[in-house]
């Protein structure tokens, strides 16, 4: 081996040893965060990155439950949007909601809706049912509040 090769092997070995030597550290807490900052790295961003990564790839039980709840809610909403009911069933449901609203004292003109039942498409009827349900829920919650 020539002197040059020997020297280059020595330098390579030195750098290998340097990497292993620096691999361990005894920094903790604030010192560690400060060290990252000195390297131009933002510890807050890195902490956020870990949190996001864990939430996505290793969620806790409560995160999983929350995710499942949201997913169920989404699929329920989706199902409500896409369900295909027979036209007569939708009309019947509308009548039921109108009756419930009437019982709450809301002035619903059945005749106006009756006219609509004849002319409206299936999608319009579904939309009307959705709309009436929302109105009913609002009225109901208002009435409950008043009762308290």
């Amino acid at each position, binding site marked *: 081996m020539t002197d040059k090769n020997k020297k*280059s092997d*020595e*330098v*390579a*070995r*030195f*750098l*290998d*040893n*340097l*990497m*292993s*030597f*620096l*691999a*361990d*550290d*005894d*920094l*903790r*807490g604030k010192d*560690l*965060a400060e*060290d*990252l900052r*000195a*390297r131009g*790295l933002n*510890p807050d961003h*890195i*902490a956020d*990155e*870990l949190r996001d*990564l*864990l939430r996505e*790839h*290793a969620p*806790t039980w409560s995160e999983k439950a929350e995710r499942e709840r949201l997913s169920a809610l989404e699929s329920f909403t989706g199902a409500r949007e896409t369900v295909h009911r027979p036209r007569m069933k939708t009309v019947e449901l509308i009548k039921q909601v109108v009756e419930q609203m009437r019982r709450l004292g809301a002035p619903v003109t059945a005749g106006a809706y009756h006219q609509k039942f004849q002319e409206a498409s299936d999608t319009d009827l579904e939309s009307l049912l959705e709309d009436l349900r929302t109105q009913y829920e609002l009225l109901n919650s208002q009435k409950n509040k008043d009762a308290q």
Partner: protein
Amino acid sequence: MPNGRERAADILHGPEGQEIYFRLVRYADMLARIYGWRTGAVLPGSASPRSIVHDVVVKVLEGTRSWDERKEPALLNALKGMVRSEIGHLYERVEESLVEPINVVLPDGEERTGDFFPSTKLHPGGLNPEQHLLRQERTKLEFAALNLLLKEIEGNDDLESVFLALHETDSPSEIAAKTNIPIQRVYSARRELDRIVARIPLARVVRTARKENEHDRQE
């Protein structure tokens, strides 16, 4: 008994999780810097020390990389091994892509051919001319990095002693024994050396290597 994936998730969710992740990023940053010095290149593509750490941890949590706690009980050490292997592979690919054509006319008019590399004549089974050239380049960069480090530690007795001992060993206890420096001072020197390494950018190493190269040619 939970598998490595579940255990890793538990630990990372636990009180030491953030510290493990911080230390891993710090380690990746140091490794990428020194690999960069040695190859004269930054991490390829859009990779960064942080993205490498992120990907390694995701792989462990998804089970595409496995952590065997019986073989390596400390999660941090297991992750460090994976990060090191990822960074090593990335730089190997950089080196493979840095192949320079052998048959060129040099700036002084001399024509370079495969015969320009004597090792291939003497050792046909050894490095081919391209590998030889890469190795030469790498050696120049490594010498430049070493010289820059030397300049930075000049005048600090502990650092100079640790620096010398690092030519033979990477173990803090062995360095302490060889240099007669108490182990706590070896650790302090390590922190200082680490800060120095973080201060030397790749561009400075490349510039120094070029200057030394020009100097050698003039001689």
